[in-house]
């Protein structure tokens, strides 16, 4: 993408409005920070729980998917010249600590953590998809009167859809692996949900 820009790539669509730009800026920043967090939560859980043969492949599979999500948003952040979250070091430390802590609570604790995180993230991605389909209908193509999504907006939507589905698969996996048996279930999941929501709110802005 970097290369394309230098070769005076022919744009296909008219300019985005400042509000649309600001929104996309936020989307990429918060999703990058979120996937970084997910990556490191699984890193922490994997460190705490990889000695259990039954659990190791399950965690590894989810972790690999998160690494892919993280890399994808890293690339989008560089290509679209979005500023990463200033609090990245804090997200790294916090997410790893959260993964390690819930992993040390045992299998159920780790799965309850996954359940809480993926619930918040699933809703968060759905919210973004709603805005991306409602708030971006007025972008005109160059040389015609029709409106459409440019290739970048289209692929961003597709990416978020795929990632949302994968995050919700993780949610199902967590419930299959007895996340509801974690004790104290309510306190643990609600605390993690609240933490995630605060982190999302902050990463969008700072």
């Amino acid at each position, binding site marked *: *993408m*970097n290369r*394309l*820009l*230098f070769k005076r*790539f022919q*744009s*296909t*669509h*008219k*300019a*985005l409005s*400042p509000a649309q*730009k*600001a929104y*996309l*800026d936020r989307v*990429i920043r918060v999703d*990058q920070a979120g996937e*970084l967090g997910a990556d490191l939560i699984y890193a922490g859980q994997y*460190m705490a729980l990889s*000695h259990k043969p039954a659990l190791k492949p399950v965690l590894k599979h989810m972790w690999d998917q998160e690494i892919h999500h993280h890399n994808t948003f*890293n690339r989008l*952040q*560089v290509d*679209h*010249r*979005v*500023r*990463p979250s*200033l609090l*990245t*070091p804090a997200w*790294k430390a916090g997410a790893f600590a959260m993964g390690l802590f819930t992993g040390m609570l045992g299998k159920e604790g780790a799965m309850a953590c996954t359940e809480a995180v993926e619930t918040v993230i699933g809703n968060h991605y759905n919210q973004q998809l709603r805005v991306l389909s409602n708030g971006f209908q007025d*972008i005109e193509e*160059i040389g015609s009167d029709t409106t459409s999504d*440019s*290739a*970048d*907006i289209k692929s961003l939507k597709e990416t978020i859809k795929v990632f949302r589905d994968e995050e919700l698969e993780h949610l199902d996996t967590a419930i299959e692996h007895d996340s509801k048996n974690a004790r104290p279930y309510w306190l643990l999941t609600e605390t993690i949900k609240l933490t995630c929501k605060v982190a999302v709110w902050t990463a969008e802005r700072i």
Partner: protein
Amino acid sequence: MHFRGPIGRACVRPVFKPAVAVRGFQSVYHVETPTIDESKLENQILGRAYTKFVPEHGFTRQSVDLAIADLQLRPENLGGLFGIGLQVSDVVNELIMYHLKHTRANLSKYHDEAGKLATEGAKVRFYMQKRLLDNVPIIKYYHQALGRMILPTNLGTFLTELHNLSDDITYYSGDQSNDFAWYSKRFALSGAFVQSELFMLGDTTPDYSATISFMNDRVSDIDTLGYAYNSVEEWAIFNGISLVNLIKSQLARG
């Protein structure tokens, strides 16, 4: 609403707030607004003043007046131009901003040449050198500009533009950083650039070779610092993992 007297004067006091866009999301599929919109009359005046009169008369009101005369415009019809559209009476600030934006936009001419360089560091040096040498035509009067840039009321705007410059240079050089390094790189580069510009004011060597080698040293310092940071981080992570494994093995022994 109209106020008279001292309140009125306070209300209409112009604020220097030109359109320094904070960049945000960019996509190659969407048209970008140009750094300088040359179709605007005020930019044509500033452009004429900058290329033709600043090298002789400096960043002064006189350069703009001469440009207006040169374009055969009538100054009495332009009263609103710099006052209303841009909320600024001080046209000299606009002239300085024109210099900064013009030279920054100029960097995009060098992409083909820069593409032949191998490393990110080499590209950063290349763009920095081109940008510094773009100061040469007006270097005699550049102290005037710097003096105005650091006035407290102007500082914020000009710092934003400085950040835009270092952001452009790092992006053009192929920066791939995704975390805090994104910030440290840009801040370090802004610092190196300002230092080099100050050095350049007193540089008497032909073709400014001393400035260029000064700039190269500053950029090398940044590289060294980045390398040191990465090495320490790698060392810490390695030892952290070793420690965990040590504890695990001790626990497993019982």
